[in-house]
């Protein structure tokens, strides 16, 4: 069932499109929902790639599904312990650093990348990206996964800092729709989470309700 090549991921992979963007007062994080094997077979049409690692911190996974699930499980544990010890909700950078540490120290064996986004009391809404090798970078908007290559232009042109919540959500949905339209290993539904000081809202846009463009 799986073809093992150097560049490909063994087992189920989340060839994917993930993104996160900050807006005025919060952050939107989203992904597609397709899991594939060998770039040929869709093993799951509705896999959840947007994982809540703490009350106001989410992360999106890309790469090998097994590796990403294992890393987020470990990160959830470490973050929960850290939060209990500090007796305060964790900072988003703490979550991102935990993921980065796991990815960097085990870089030989792991094939997983993450986007962490959330809200904390100290610095407000933030987005961090942890790449495959364990680089940690903070950005106001970021995209990742195999489908991201098709939407760099769209994101660069359309993103504005301090958008409103609705504008940012629409921007994210549009970006995901465009990427899913061009990338064969991204698809399914668009899973998004909107994180603000007051709470978290999950938004799910089924494939047939995604925005359509000139050629659809």
């Amino acid at each position, binding site marked *: *069932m799986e073809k*093992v090549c*150097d560049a490909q991921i*063994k*087992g*189920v992979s989340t060839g994917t499109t993930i993104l996160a963007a900050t807006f005025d007062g919060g952050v939107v994080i989203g992904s597609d929902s397709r*899991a594939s094997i060998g770039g040929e*077979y869709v*093993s*799951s049409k*509705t*896999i959840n790639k947007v994982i809540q690692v703490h009350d106001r911190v989410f992360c999106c996974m890309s790469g*090998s*599904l*097994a*590796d990403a*699930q*294992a890393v987020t*499980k*470990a990160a959830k544990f470490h973050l929960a312990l850290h939060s209990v010890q500090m007796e305060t909700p964790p900072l988003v950078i703490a979550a991102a650093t935990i993921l980065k540490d*796991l990815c960097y*120290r*085990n870089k*030989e*064996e792991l094939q997983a990348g993450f986007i962490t986004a959330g809200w904390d009391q100290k610095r407000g809404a933030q987005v961090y990206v942890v790449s495959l090798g364990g680089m940690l970078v903070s950005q106001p908007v970021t995209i990742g996964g195999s489908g991201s290559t098709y939407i760099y232009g769209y994101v660069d042109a359309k993103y504005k800092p301090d958008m409103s919540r609705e504008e940012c959500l629409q921007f994210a949905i549009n970006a995901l729709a465009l990427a899913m339209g061009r990338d064969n290993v991204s698809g399914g539904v668009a899973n998004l989470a909107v994180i603000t000081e007051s709470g978290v809202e999950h938004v799910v846009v089924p494939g047939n309700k995604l925005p359509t463009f000139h050629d659809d």
Partner: protein
Amino acid sequence: MALSNVLEAPAAGFNFENSSSVPENNLYVRVNEIHQRSVVFSSFFFPSPVFYPLLQDGVVLGADTRATSSEVVADKMCSKIHYMAPNIYCCGAGTAADTEKTTDLVASNLTIFSLNSGRKPRVVMAVNILQDLLYRYRGQIGASLILGGVDCTGSHLYTVGPYGSVDKKPYLAMGSGNLAAMGIMEDGFRPDLELDQAKQLVRSAIQAGILNDLGSGHNIDLCVITDRGVDYIRPYQESQYKDHRTNKYRFRQGTTPVLTDTVVPLELEVVEEKVQQMETS
């Protein structure tokens, strides 16, 4: 920790002892393994469809009964639906030994957990233990499992891949026949299936696998788990192609004539004699 896992508690953090960092090495080792599996007859590989939709108040698990060793059918009546707990059953596709042993291991763990804690295990607990185990072994344990069961939180259906990926779905198919089975599933599954409809759907899906996949065949086993109990139907449907052996293969004593009979007594010399009194009081 002590309650849930009676194996040696895995060290905190990631443990990559079971993998080599050089990808080329891994590929080489894998090729060797597959070759060995086909040579050693007793370790068989059963890729096969196993398939399960979720009912409102239960789960239906189904599987075929063929185990193969490359092109040869090693077992026509193997049992692929394994017991994990009174309320949890697991279907395994992949390497037969791996699925057997892995499910056995987790079943033992769950039993001890139940005795220690006084609680019935939850399906998600079995899933987590399996995920940790399979992930630690980096795909070297070739077990693709589907777990279904009913616990205090309701009925659940999970799949755990050989590399340790987990997915929760209302219906699933795994094994070499999963493409054929999934087609039937996608067409026939509704969220509000009745028990009989679900059983028919599972039967049709496994049938599709049996007909279209060479790795699947023979009978269909079904296992229905509800909050009222478990109904393990083996077989639910028998194979149309049965053996009709025309000869008797038992030979009466004396069929092979004895030509000569030589008895050679062994001369034994007593070297040392020791008498030890037994305590009988």
